[in-house]
Structures are given as C-alpha cells and as structure tokens.
C-alpha cells in the first residue's frame, strides 16, 4: 500500500470572488456545509482504504477555509484526527483571509492542531486592494494578523501580490516593509498573472489592465533584495521564509513527493497516478455520498513526465535540481554550458546540482524550457 505523508484539503468557499483568482472556488450559497464537511471526511475514508496514511504535513487551502463555522471546523478537524494518527504531523497549514475569523475561531484552530497560518493580505495599500477587488481593508488585515499571534500561532505567513496595474515601486516596497515590520515568518510574493476564465483576463485583453515586463522584473528584484536584506531566505521563486519557517508541504510538491488531495478540485498524485477530485462541489458531494470515488482527469505518469515535472518545479527552489536530470548530467555541453555562460544558472554545492542565478530566477520559465 502506498504510504502518504502529505494531505491537501480544498475548501472552495469564498464570500466574495476576487476578479483575478483562478482557483476552483465559489460562494457558499445554500449548500449545507455540514454535508460538505462529511463528504470531505468520507473522501478521506475512501482514500484510506488503499493508502497507508502516515501524515507529516497537512495543508488546508481554498477558497477560504476560515469561512467554515467554528462547529464545522471542529467537526472536520476532529473527524480527521479520528480517521488517522496525526502524531507524526510536523506542519499543519491553513489559509486564512482577513475579516473571516475572530480570536475564538483562531484559537479553536490552534487547539485542534493547526500550526501555521498563511494570511491572504495581498497588499497593504487601499488603492491596490481596490484594483484587486479584495473585500477587506489594510486595517482589517493588520488586525487579523495580530489575532493570529494572540491565538498563539508560532508561524504566520503573509501573502502579497505585486505588479498590479497602478502599483508603484514605492507601494510595493511599503507592502514588503509592513510584512517585515509585523514580523511575518513567511512571505509569499506573487507576481500578478492573468489567469484563464477570470474577469482580470477579459479586462487585460480589452486593454484596461496592463502587464509590464519591466515592472514585473524590477518589483521582483525589489522583493528579493528587501526580504533577503531582512533575513528571509528566498527558497522558491515566490516564497521567502525566516529559517525554519519554509513550507514543508509545498517543498514536498516541489521535490516530486506523493500527496493526497481531497475536496472538489483537489489534485492527488500517488505512485505514478494523478487525478483530480471533481471540481464541482454539488456533484462531488453526490458522488461521495453514493460511496463512489469522485475522481476525474486520471493520468498515468511516465518517468519522462516525472523528470519534466521535477525540472519544472524543483528547479525553482534554492536547492535546484540534480544535474543528472538534465542533459544526462553533462555540464560542459549545450544548453547547460551556454546557460551558465549567460549567467542564468550555476552549479550548486556539492557540485552535482544546478540552480538558477538571480537573473535566471526572473527568467525561470525560459531557462527551464531551454533545458527540457
């Protein structure tokens, strides 16, 4: 039986839909959250029949997991603990949005085992928040941060977005400074992208929202310089952490580990098979209630698929990839040698790994394509 160390739980509910967001999410509507929570537990129960759950990391993402009521959260988290032994869990992350929880809810999560919070701040500037269509103010975000600390979370991360149309370098610098000043343990700094099926993409195509490679690049470098200067380690393209606060769960994805995902739209990869749980909450619940797996988009991964995935993901991390997975490990011939010559990649210690340089990080997709 396949041993699973990493569990992802997708909570697709959001109060308000952000116009740039490409995740599977929707408003809770009149769906019975009780039925949803039970379906999550049932899906896990189904999966546990042919896997050996020995969880080390858990990630509750969304959507907005903090939208669930305290009683549903309690039902879900205790249900989870009842299904499998959580004593080996080293990190349990939950995504939270400002203005969706209070001290009581935060304390409850803390008490039920969550160790790490990723808070969706996105910006500390009122105008940038407005452009992004977020439904909270900078003050609410700041209050939410303090509530999390008050609840006793030892690891709190802040998510920020840069290169938003209208955002200035000064605005971005202020966003970073504020996260540093608050003492965030982790910062995710995402370059705004125009995702498929979003209002932002439509507006981008109409020319209302621009993208600007120069702005992308200079704000990216600004983030690296500012955060590294404040003691954070740039351990993946979009992620910075104080030592010991790197996301173990995400690192598992990047290194090609197996993981189980539950909840509508969640993806699982187990022993060369990958599938997605139906990205349709009602249909997903119905299937689970009927006692059937609610899987779709099943894939069988070949060795070459896995090699390309490592190249695509692990190469983005500070550790880089074993040189053996590209060009048969031959570092002296093209394309490796010319990318080294161009200062885009470098040989990392102990000498058998390749990683991106500062300039290479900004061009990671092109560099990866050149090596594929």
């Amino acid at each position, binding site marked *: 039986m396949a041993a699973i160390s990493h569990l992802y739980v997708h909570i697709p509910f959001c109060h308000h839909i952000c116009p740039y967001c490409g995740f599977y999410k929707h408003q809770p509507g009149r769906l019975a959250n009780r039925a949803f929570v039970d379906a999550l537990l049932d899906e896990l129960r189904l999966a546990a029949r042919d896997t050996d759950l020995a969880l080390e990391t858990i990630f509750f993402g969304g959507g907005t997991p903090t939208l669930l009521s305290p009683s549903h959260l309690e039902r879900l988290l205790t249900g989870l603990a009842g299904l499998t032994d959580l004593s080996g869990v080293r990190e349990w992350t939950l995504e939270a949005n400002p203005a969706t929880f209070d001290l009581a809810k935060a304390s409850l999560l803390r008490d039920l085992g969550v160790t790490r919070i990723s808070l969706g701040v996105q910006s500390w500037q009122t105008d940038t928040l407005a452009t992004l269509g977020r439904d909270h103010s900078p003050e609410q975000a700041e209050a939410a941060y303090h509530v999390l600390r008050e609840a006793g979370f030892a690891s709190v991360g802040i998510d920020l977005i840069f290169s938003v149309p209208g955002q200035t370098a000064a605005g971005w610098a202020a966003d970073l400074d504020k996260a540093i000043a608050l003492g965030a343990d982790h910062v995710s700094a995402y370059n705004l992208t125009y995702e498929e099926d979003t209002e932002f993409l439509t507006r981008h195509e109409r020319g209302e929202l621009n993208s600007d*490679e120069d702005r992308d690049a200079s704000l990216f470098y600004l983030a690296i310089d500012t955060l590294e200067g404040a003691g954070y380690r740039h351990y993946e393209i979009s992620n910075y952490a104080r030592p010991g606060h790197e996301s173990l769960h995400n690192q598992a994805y990047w290194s090609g580990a197996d993981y189980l995902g539950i909840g509508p739209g969640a993806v699982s990869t187990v022993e060369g098979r990958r599938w997605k749980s139906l990205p349709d909450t009602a249909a997903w619940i119905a299937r689970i209630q009927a006692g059937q797996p609610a899987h779709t988009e099943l894939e069988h991964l070949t060795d070459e*698929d896995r090699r390309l995935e490592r190249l695509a*993901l692990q190469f983005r991390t500070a550790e880089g990839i074993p040189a053996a997975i590209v060009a048969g490990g031959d570092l002296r011939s093209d394309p490796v040698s010319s990318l080294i010559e161009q200062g885009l990649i470098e040989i990392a210690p102990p000498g058998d790994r390749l990683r991106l340089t500062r300039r290479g990080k*900004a061009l*990671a*997709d*092109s560099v990866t394509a050149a090596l594929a």
Partner: protein
Amino acid sequence: MSTALTRNFSIIAHIDHGKTTLSDRLLEATQTITDRQRQDQLLDSMDLERERGITIKSHPVTMSYKARDGKTYQLNLLDTPGHVDFSYEVSRSLAACEGALLLIDAAQGVEAQTMANVHLAHQQNLTVIPVINKIDLPAADIPAVKKQLEDIIAIPGEEAIPASAKMGIGISDILEAIVERIPPPAEPIDDRLRALVFDSVFDTYRGVVSYVRVISGEIRRGTAIEMFSTGKRYEVKETGVFTPKQTPRDRLVTGDVGYLIANMKSSSEVKIGDTITDAQRPCSEALPGFKEIQPMVFAGIYPVSSDDFEQLKVAMGKLQINDAAFTFQAESSAALGFGFRCGFLGLLHMEIVQERLRREFDMDVISTYPGVIYHVKKTDGEQIEVDNPSYLPEPQVIEEIQEPIVRVFIMVPNENIGDMMQLVADKRGELENTETLDTTRVLLTAILPLNEILVDFNDKLKSVTRGYGSMDYEHAGYRPAKLVKMEMMISGEPVDAFSTIVHRDKAESRGRELAAKLKEVIPQQMFVVAIQAAIGGKIIARESISAMRKNVTAKCYGGDITRKRKLLEKQKEGKKRMKAIGKVNIPQEAFIQVLKTSN
C-alpha cells in the same frame, strides 16, 4: 495539296480588350460550336485562367468558313498567352501564323500590352488587321483610336474594322478580312516534313500532346518522327485538329495547325519552338528561331511544414510535366529547412506555379524573395551565371556584375507623368521615349532592371495612376550595374533566406526595412539579439531586440503540476520547429511571416 484555302492567325490584345469574347463569336459565326455547347469564354479552360482572365496555355481551334467568294476556308486561330512572362510562347505561336488580329478597346485605346504584342507581330512579319472593339460602348471613340494606330503603330486608320464582340457587330467583316488580307501559308520548298512545335500539354492518359504547325510535308499515325533539338525518335500514335476539343484526323499537311501524340512521357521531352521532322526523310535544317526557354526569375520555394518536402518534390515533378519552363532543384536553407530553388519565366509564372501547388496539390508553401540571373565576370576572366545570392563570389574576385534589363511600355494619364518618371528613376530606370497617345495619355518607354520591376512595380504604377496606368515589357539584354550581396545577420550569423543581391544605392533602405521586419517577428530571447544588414562584413543597418527581463510562473503547487508539465512539453515540441541561428532559436513561422510581408 494547296494551302490556298488555309489561314492561320492569332489575336493580340491588351487584357480585357475582348480577345476571349471575340474568339467565342468567331467560333459561333463559323458554327464551330453550337449554341448548346456554348459556355462563356470557351477558350480559357483552366480555372486559374478564367479567374484571372489570362490565357496561360495556347488554345488553338480550327474553323471552317464559307467566304463571300463562295469557297470554304479552313481558319486556324491560335490563341496566345496574354502575358509577357510567356512571350516566348507568344512569339512561337505567332511564328505559326501568317497574320494577327490586333484588338483595341474603342474606349480605352492603345495600351501597354498592345504595344508589346505589336512589336512581336512585326518581328514575325505578320499581316496585322486592326479591329476596334466595343464600339457599342457610349465612351467608344473610334477616330481617336484610329489616330493612335497611325501615330504610334504606323497602321493606316482606314484598315481598322469597327466591331463589337459582345453585340456581334463586325464579325463577318473580320472573317472576310482574315481571308482577304492574310496570306495563305507559303508554298513549301520541298515535301520533307517540317513541323513547328508551338506548345504542348500533358494528358494523364495519353501522355504529351504536342501542338504543331506543319510548314511542309505531312504527318500521320505511324510516321516515325525525329525531334530536331534532341535527335530523339518517336512513333506518332495520333494526329488531329482542335474543334476546339482535340479531334483525331488522318493526317496533318502543309499549312495545318493541329496536334500529335507520340509516346513521350514528359513535357521536357518536347521543347517549344523545336522542329519535328520525318526520321526516314529528315529535312536538313531546323525551322528558324528555336531557343531553349530560359527561366528569368528565381526563388526558393519551401514547404511550410518540413514533413511535406517529399510531397512537394512529387508535386513539382508533376507540374513540370505540364510546364517545361518551370525548373526546380533541391536546396536547403538554415532558416527554412529543405526546399527547392525554382526558375520561372517571370513573376506571373511564379505566382501561377505557387497557386497551382496550393490548389492542385494542396501544398502549403512559402517562397523567398525573387531574384534574377546575374552575369558575373570574375577577375580571372571566368564568366559565371548566378541565380542564388549564396553563390555570388566574394567581392574582391568580381570584376563586373551584369543584370538583366527590360524595355517597359508604360501608359499613363498626363497628370501622372511626373510621378511616373519619379517611380522609373527610383527603380533605377531611364526613359527612352515619351509619346503622346491622345489628349489624356502618354506612352513612356523606359529601360529598367528586371529585378526592380519584379516585386511591386506594377502595384506602384497602379497606385500612382489610381488604376488608370498600364505596363508591359520585353527583355532587353544585360548591362553592368553596381550590385552587391546584402546579408541579414542575427546575432552575427547570416540568415541565408534573406540574402539578396541589391544595387549598392538601395542596400541601406532594403536592409533597414528587412531588419525592422525581423525585429517584429523574432521572439524575445534571454539575451540581446542584434539584427544587422551587412555588405561584405560592413554593417549598413541594424536593429536590436532587448533581452527578456522576466518570464516566470508565479505559482506552482499541487494542482498546477500537470499544466506546468504540459506547457514544458509543448515548448519542447516547439523547439523542434525552431531554427537555430547561432544561439538564437527562431520559429520557422517567423521567417515565413517576413517573407510573406516582404514579397
């Protein structure tokens, strides 16, 4: 047998002056075709010919006409290709005739092509019968056209027959004039077989069909014939005439126009202008004027998808069977992959070949910038011909380069003379002559490099004259010019598909134009890319593409992995279709884009 009752003629006219319509009327008047068979514009049988209103292949037809003198004559009409690209074929068709109808639109008057064709007819010593067509039009001005005939072509105005092909006016006068004014075929000097090949077509079932005019002797089924130029012998399988469809006849005799089929497999076995004689009793000399048709315009033709190379080769082979003037030879280009260096009679011919490859063979092709044949004299005295810029020797070993020139006849409205002269000068031309045509138009005769009129001269002429101008040309030999090879370089590497031979004075502007276009289509790279135009290593124009600054996906988590991998697979696949010019990877489509916009 006497030739007294035979008349061979063709119709020469500027496009749209009514040649096809008049041909149809003549066929009807002589009951060669019945109304039931009638189909508009009967003689233009290829789709492409109908669409463009041009004749590419000859469509001869034999008519039987009872004249006013009570005798029945056999009239052979040799329709000729109407475009200068095919002027050699035109002149061969005319060589098979004793006379020509010169058709002029009563409302348009003499046009450029009228001039070029009259030149050819005079060279063949043909009797020219002027016909002023479209007299039914309100704008018809018969006296003005008569005056132009006298002033420009030196034909007495009273010889002109007023007609309307459309309304059927003047048709019997024309038929009578053909009988009365055009001399019958000359009596042969002996009875040995001499037949002039003036065209040929390839028939899938019957092989090569040669179109011939018998000058002396006779041909029938079973005759052993010999081709004068190759010495090859064949047995005749069938002889016949055009009614207008090919209709077998026992034999063809002196003065006849018809066809013959022998067991020839490809049009390249029969050369237009060649003499056919009897293998047993050959004539001693060929008929005058045979020369191999030489392609004048050259370009690379490449399959858009490199997988189609073999298929393209097969398609070209099939085309050539029917079009001996088209030549091709495999070549390869760093930018475009494997393709062919092709030779054409002219730009129209090139367009037609490309169009036929697309339509008849479903091939997706792209062609490089067209060029001409240069005569290069090297410092060591050697003379070479260069049709591909890649083969031009290094400048230091070139003593002189000569380029082909043409005599261009241009008709322009008076108010555009200034602009037109400027255009001629821009294209490195010299005006030879200016003649007033009528109160509104002049005829300019100019010598221009062929190379300069290849691409956009006609379009520019049309735009300068708002569509009222017209042009035609004839080849006028070679002359020396200050020509250089210009190379386009990407990051210091020359890109063969864009090498051109240009006049030194035009190199800068052409170089700038190409550099700007390349800049538009070459995707940004991770480093700065220099695009340069150079002559013998000296940079004359440059552009640069700035390096890409940021290209990285923001998020990569569990749900994104497949999408990310698929993207990478696509990029990997895309790399296969990229052409590496040095370190720069450029999609082939980018090159194609530039060739499309610069041709």
